[in-house]
Each structure stands twice: as structure tokens, then as C-alpha cells.
């Protein structure tokens, strides 16, 4: 019941938005997203009480091909649904300063996007997963292209075609797996886990899935759409892309690649891992050179998600647990960072590093809040980033110490470029003489303080998330190992 409500709510609110007057659009969207969040919080409590009955929903959809509308949440899904529900009010509230032309359409698209994201994280049927995965593309395309900055049109077109090309490969793989299922075929993901595929087949399917998700995440060298798209998108669009949408790719890696094609993974994991590590180092180095704050965060995001993807590919408990908690953390941190950059751009009219300076003196609260999130982002102990990155590196160490060593560079490089940002923008001389600039106030604080609180709370009590994902992660690895031994026993 809860699951289907979470999907229906965005649809209902999208319709309300289209009917209601444009002036109240933001408020309606905000109410909708807060209701979704409360329901998700309820789902979380149900999960903790191990009452799973309300979290699942299953009806037949197209019986001719055995497609079911089958949604539900295990721990991994729950954490990502929670992240979506948590970030949505933040993202919607963050738009209140900017004047948005045609707000009805904008917020309806945001709601549609929420439907897609929730659907992807909850789908238990591969076909359903694909439909929701693609459904997210349309709203984000329009949000970025219509409300974006200069040159947003060609850039978003590239983004759209890039990602759709990737996911069509996934569609072929899903159809292939479907025809491999015994009896009257099914798209059930659990049934895919039981398949015994030859190593050659697994190699092909691995690549079909990996390319689809690598474009979305993005993993080097499929990242070329990302910095441009992040830069030209409106801030809400960037937050959606960085905070939530790329999590779909990592979630896909966990759900599809590990349990379905473990042998394919085994054959290709070194290659994929190298790509991830190149991405981590390369993106960090580029981030170091950026002058545009938004672009800097965009590149740092490639480095962070590269590490998460590498942790998933390592395929052990620490790596997976770290990946899941770090997905959550990355969502919180990156959205908070983008939001603060938006504040800076709004107050000073620029987000170029050499035109800014000494902000901490003028906006003391912002200086502190930025510091907290930044420390979380570079993984200082007692912040959320530390827990995630520690687990990720541990997982990679088990996989291969050298991989961990190179990936560990991200901690150092991350500190370098983030501190460079902080020094140039927040410290130093004031370059702008508008001394009247107001500090973080009112609702901005309402958004930023909870986010900063989450950064610290998860840093100190990571178990509130780790406990949730522990059991499904073990189950997943169990599937994977059974599957591996099953195939090699043939």
C-alpha cells in the first residue's frame, strides 16, 4: 500500500499543479513532496519493525508477456527512496528565490521525475524498472533544456541521446534474459537471479548493463555529457541530476550486474575497475583546475561516484555497504553544496572563483555551514563522508590493495580542490564591495541546517542506515556466490 501510494502521490500532485493557479505552484509542490517524505518515514518505521506487508504491491500488467506491476522495498531500495523523499522538499524549496517562467509546467515535471525515481528504486520487475528508468529522462530533459542557461539546447540533446542509447542496450539485455527464463517467461528480477548463463553470455550481458549504467553514473570515459549538462542546467535540475538521477545507475549496478552476471563481472571487473579509478583521479585533477564553482562540484561528483561504482564492482560486504551509505551521503552533500553555490551566485552575481573572496567574513553562517558540508564531502572522521569512503576503500582493499591505494587518492585530491575552493572563495580579500550582503536567513537556514545535521548525525551513527541495508546486501552476495558456484559446477 505504501509503495503504490508513493508512486501515485506525485501523479496526483502533478495533476493538481496543472489545474491550480500558477502563483501557488511552488507551495503545492512543496506540500506534495513533504507528504511523500512523511509516508517514506512511515515506511522506514515499518521496515524497522520488520512489517514488510505494506511495502509491497503486485498486480498483473501485461499477462501475455508475464509482465507484472511488481514494486516493493528492501533495505537498499528503502535508503534510496528515503534519499529521494528527503531531497525533494529541499530541491523544491531551493527554487523559491529564482523566478521561474511557467511554474506549472516546471513543478509538474518535477513531480513526474519523482514518480520515475521512486519507481526505479522500487521496481521488482525488470520491464517496470526499464520504463521508470526512461521515464525520468523526459522531465529532466525539459527542465534542463527549457529552463537552462545558454547553449542548454544542444547540450541536453547530447545528454538525452547518450543516455537513451545506453539504456537501449539494457533493454536488449533484459529481453534476452526474459527469453532465458524457464517455462512461461517472466521479467521478475528474482527469476533472473536464478538463471544459469554461460560465461560468454554473461560477458555480453555484463557489457550491455554496464554501458547503460556507466553513461548514467557517469564512469570515465562516458562522462562527457555530465559537466556541461550540470553547468547549463537550472540549479534544481542540477540537483536532481547529481543528487538523485545518477543513483539510478549505481542502483542498477547493484541490482542487475552483481547477482545476474557474476562470471561476466569476474571476467571484466579489472577493466571496469580501472575505468572507475581513472575517472576518480582524472575528474579530481580537472576539478582542481576549475574556476566555475558549479563545474568544480560537477567534476568532484564524477570522482565521488566513480569511487562508489568501484566499491560496488569490488562486490564484497564492505564495498557494497559503503556504496549504499555513500550514495545517500553523496546525495545530501552535493545538493547542499549546489544550494550554497546558488546562494553565493544569487548574492554576488557570479560563481567564478577569481571574482569571489572573503565571503566567510561577510556571511559568517554560510561559511560555517559550507565548512561542515565540505568536510563531509572530503570524508573527515565524524562526518558522513568518512563512513562511506572508509567502507568503500576497505571493500576495494579486500578486492585489490593497489586499487584501494589509487582510489584513495580521491581523499587527498578531494581535500586539495575543496580547500582551494574554500580558501579562494570564503577566505582572503573581499573582492566585491557590496558590504550589505545578507547572510543565510529564514528558509535558507531551514534547508541547510537539517542537511548539515544529517551530515554529522550519519557520521556519528552510521548504523541507522547500515543496519537497514545489511541484510539485503548479505542476501545479494549470497545469490551471487551461489550463482557462481552453480555455473562453474555445470
Amino acid at each position, binding site marked *: 500500500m505504501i509503495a503504490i501510494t508513493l508512486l501515485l502521490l506525485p501523479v496526483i500532485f502533478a495533476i493538481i499543479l496543472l489545474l491550480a493557479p500558477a502563483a501557488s505552484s511552488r507551495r503545492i509542490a512543496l506540500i506534495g513532496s513533504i507528504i511523500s517524505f512523511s509516508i517514506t518515514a512511515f515506511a522506514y518505521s515499518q521496515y524497522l519493525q520488520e512489517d514488510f506487508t505494506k511495502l509491497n504491491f503486485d498486480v498483473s*500488467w*501485461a*499477462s*501475455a*508477456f508475464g*509482465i507484472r506491476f511488481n514494486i516493493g522495498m528492501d533495505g537498499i531500495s528503502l535508503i534510496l527512496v528515503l534519499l529521494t523523499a528527503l531531497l525533494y522538499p529541499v530541491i523544491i524549496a531551493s527554487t523559491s528565490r529564482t523566478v521561474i517562467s511557467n511554474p506549472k509546467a516546471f513543478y509538474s515535471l518535477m513531480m513526474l521525475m519523482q514518480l520515475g525515481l521512486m519507481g526505479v528504486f522500487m521496481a521488482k520487475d525488470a*520491464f517496470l524498472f*526499464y*520504463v*521508470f528508468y*526512461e*521515464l525520468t*529522462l*523526459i522531465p529532466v530533459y*525539459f527542465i534542463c*533544456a*527549457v529552463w537552462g542557461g545558454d547553449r542548454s*539546447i544542444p547540450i541536453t*540533446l547530447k545528454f*538525452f*541521446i547518450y543516455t*537513451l*542509447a545506453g539504456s*537501449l*542496450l539494457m*533493454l*536488449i539485455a533484459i*529481453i*534476452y534474459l*526474459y*527469453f532465458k527464463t524457464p517455462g512461461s517467461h517472466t521479467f521478475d528480477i528474482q527469476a533472473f537471479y536464478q538463471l544459469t548463463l554461460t560465461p560468454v553470455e554473461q560477458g555480453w550481458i555484463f557489457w550491455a548493463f554496464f554501458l547503460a549504467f556507466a553513461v548514467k553514473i557517469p564512469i570515465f570515459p562516458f562522462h562527457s555529457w555530465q559537466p556541461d549538462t550540470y553547468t547549463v542546467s537550472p540549479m534544481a535540475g542540477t540537483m536532481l541530476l547529481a543528487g538523485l538521477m545518477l543513483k539510478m545507475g549505481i542502483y542498477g549496478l547493484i541490482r542487475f550486474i552483481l547477482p545476474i552476471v557474476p562470471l561476466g563481472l569476474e571476467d571484466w571487473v579489472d577493466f571496469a575497475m580501472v575505468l572507475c579509478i581513472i575517472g576518480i583521479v582524472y575528474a579530481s585533477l580537472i576539478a582542481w583546475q576549475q574556476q566555475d564553482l558549479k563545474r568544480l562540484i560537477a567534476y568532484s561528483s564524477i570522482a565521488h561516484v566513480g569511487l562508489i561504482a568501484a566499491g560496488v564492482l569490488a562486490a564484497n560486504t564492505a564495498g557494497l555497504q559503503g556504496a549504499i551509505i555513500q550514495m545517500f551521503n553523496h546525495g545530501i552533500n552535493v545538493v547542499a553544496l549546489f544550494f550554497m553555490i546558488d546562494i553565493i551566485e544569487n548574492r554576488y552575481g557570479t560563481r567564478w572563483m577569481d571574482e569571489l573572496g572573503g565571503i566567510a567574513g561577510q556571511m559568517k553562517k554560510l561559511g560555517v555551514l559550507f565548512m561542515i558540508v565540505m568536510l563531509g564531502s572530503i570524508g573527515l572522521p565524524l562526518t558522513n563522508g568518512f563512513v562511506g569512503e572508509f567502507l568503500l576503500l576497505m571493500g576495494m582493499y579486500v578486492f585489490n590493495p593497489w586499487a584501494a591505494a589509487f582510489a584513495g587518492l580521491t581523499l587527498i585530491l578531494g581535500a586539495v580542490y575543496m580547500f582551494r575552493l574554500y580558501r579562494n572563495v570564503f577566505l582572503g580579500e573581499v573582492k566585491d564591495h557590496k558590504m550589505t550582503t545578507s547572510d543565510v536567513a529564514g528558509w535558507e537556514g531551514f534547508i541547510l541546517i537539517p542537511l548539515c545535521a544529517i551530515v554529522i548525525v550519519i557520521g556519528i551513527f552510521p548504523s541507522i542506515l547500515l543496519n537497514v541495508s545489511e541484510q539485503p546486501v548479505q542476501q545479494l552476495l549470497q545469490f551471487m556466490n551461489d550463482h557462481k558456484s552453480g555455473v562453474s559446477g555445470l
Partner: protein
Amino acid sequence: MNEALLLMKPELIVTVIIFILLILHVARENSSPAYLLNLINGLLFINFLCGFFFNREGTLFGDMYVTNGLIVLEKNILNLGMLLISLQATDWLKKKDFIVEFYVLLLTTLLGMFFMLSSNNLLMFYLGLELSSIPLAALANFELEKRKSSEAAMKFIMSSAFSSGLLLFGISMLYGTTGTLNFAQLAMLIDGNPLQLFSFILLLAGFGFKISAVPFHLWTADVYEGSPVAVTSYLSVISKGAILFVMASVLFTVFKPLVETWYNMLYLLAVLTMIIGNLFAIRQQNLKRFLAFSSIAQVGFILIGMSGSSQEATASVIYFVLIYVFSNLGAFGVIALVSAQTGKEEIDDYKGFYLSNPMLALVMTLSLFSLAGIPPTAGFFGKFFLLMAGAGKGNFVLITIAALNMVISLYYYLRIVKVMFMEKNETPMEKLQISLFPRISLLTCMAGIILIGFTTLLYDYIFSLSTSF
């Protein structure tokens, strides 16, 4: 007697409407266009509704004519498309003097298609086909004062006559080797001797012309561009849909013994049609020409579905054509409105279309998304089921080629969306009036595009009917 009448109900109703129009034309010579259009659309709506009641199964005329649940469904789809096109054409027809003639010709072609769908005999099939294609040439020429329209009609009649010739040649050879033209008997007698193979190739080429599969597509773009919008949409949706239905039934009944042979041929046709259609669509500047090539590419997709096993192939082709009716007519509906009120048909004319006509731009966008097959529009489900039908045979190379083509097609469909939403125009189009009839038609198309995908019960229903093959 009563039963026989009910069996032929769709044909009889269309005939009655034709007679009503002719009599009316003589009796009340100067009735106003608005009155005529209201009356005709009312009649077509009744015609569409009647398709759902008193349906019978059976054969007539010594096994020449057959009808069953599936054929009734196919006729209903054509009736629906006919109604939608007629509603969209009102703006254009109001300015014309020959409303009755237009509809008489249009309904005659529909009658021909109905006979073609119900044929159980190659002679009957040929009769229906000719009845449906000759009036179309006259219709293509309906913009009497335009040179391009005449050119379109000329090209259409030539290619149509040529393909009919091929079909007839193939049919005669088939008769020569088997001594029968009845579908069921042919299916038993075909054993794959060379003459039969040759006749099959001729038949397939004939079909290829009619559905404009590559390499038989050369007439399509010119005819689509030159004809009036209503006729273009009729050609691309109704006429093509009807022939695809018949093609499926002929392949799966008559040529069932040769399935191995025609599978490879369809494979080749599908690949060529998709690739050529897509590559040419990228470079078009005229919107109708653009949709001509996009419809060629869509046919390539349909051929993939048709290469599957009989039940899935039939079901997925019919399901796709139904969705195609909605998505293509959504796009053509907008073009018809714009063309009737401003006379503009180039892609560049649509720059900044969103600013002056947001609703129409939205309709166009949804239709194009559906044509491109982006979830969750109906077009995606249509293409997905086609792919599933094709993949049932285990040919994943074909499916991969299809997926790559979907990417190419996405590029050019999005190009139109981009032009409408994001490009500036010095001479923007004025705000267009959307009168009641086109409005109903466009709303129906939108409802179809949004809802059909989610109610896949419809697919299950078609699938269950398809067992009758």
C-alpha cells in the same frame, strides 16, 4: 439472410453512408459546408460505434469473404482512424467546394480496405486492394490548383498500378501451380517449388510497394508532400495499416509452409527499411516529407514484429498499428491545423511554436515521443511488443539493429521538439484557433498515447483474439 447482413455489417454501413451522401448531394445541392461536415462526422461516429455491436463470425460467398473477432477489431481500428482524420480535416474542407466528393472517394477506399481485410481468397483480396487504391489517387490530386498535388497523384497511380501488376502476376503463377485461390487450400498446396517461390517474391514486392518498405519506397516522400494533409495522414495511417493487417494474414495463412524463406526476406527488408528511412528522415526540411520517412522507418519496425511467430506477430502488429493511429494522427492533426490556417508546412516555420501555441506544441511533442518510442508513451509499448515478438525467434542481432535505429530516430524526432520549444523566430506563427472537431480529435489522440501503454489489457485482448489464425 439476417445473419449474412450482420456478417457484412461494416461494409454495408459504409455503403449506406456513401449512398446517403450521394443522394443528399443531388437533393440538396447548396447545403452549407458546416452542415455537411457536421452530418458526415456524425455518420462516421455512428459507423465507428456500430463496429462494437452485433459482431458475428463466419464466411460468405462460397468462402470468398470471412470475418472473425480479429478482423472486426482491425476494421474498428480503421474506422477510428477514419473518424479522427475526418475531424481533423474540417478546417481545410470548409474552404473547399467538393466536400461530398471528397468523402465519397474516401469512404470508397475504406470499403475496399474492408473487403481486403475480410478476403479469404486472393481474387477478393485483389479486388479490395484496387477498390482502395484507385480513389486514393484522385484524393491525392485534391488540391486542384497545386501542381505538386497533381504530381503526387500521378506518382501514386503509377506506382500503385505497377505494384498491382506485380501482385497480379504473382497471384496468377500461384494459381497456375496450385489451381486454387482460396487461402486455406493454398496453405495446404504450397510446397515451395521454384515457381511458387517466384510468385511469393512478386507478392512480397507488391506488398512492399504498398507499405513503402525499402527498396520499394521511392514514391512515398513525393506523394506525401504533394497530397493534402488529410490524404497524407490517410495514406500513412489507414492505408498502410490495412495492408499490414492483410500482409500478416497472408503470410501466416497462405505462406505458412514457406516460413523459413520469408523470415529471411522480412529480416532483410526490416533492416533496410529502418536504416534508410531513418537516415533520410534526418535531412528533411518539409514536415510532411519528414513524417513520410519516419513512417518508412516505422514500417521497418513493424516488419520485425511480423518476423515473429504467428500469434505474437499478429497481436503486436495490430497493437502497434492502433498506437500508430493515435501517435501519427496526433502529429498530423497539428500539421493539418497549421496548414489549413497558415499554409505553412516547413520545419523552420515551427520555430518558437511553443510560445504562440503551447497546447498544440505539447500535443506534437507527445506524438513525436510516442513515435520515437520513449517510455511511458504508448509508442514505447508498441515497439517493445514488436521487439519481443521478433526476439521470440532468438534473433538478437536484429533486435540490436532495431535498438540502434531507435537512437537515430530519437535524434530527428527531438530535433522537431527542439525547434518548437527552444528556437527563436522573427516571424512567429499567430495563435491558432482550434475549433471543436479538431479539438476532439487531438484530445482522443492524447488520451490514446498516454493511456494505452498503461492498460496493457488491450494487448492481452488482441493476443487472445490472434489465436484464431
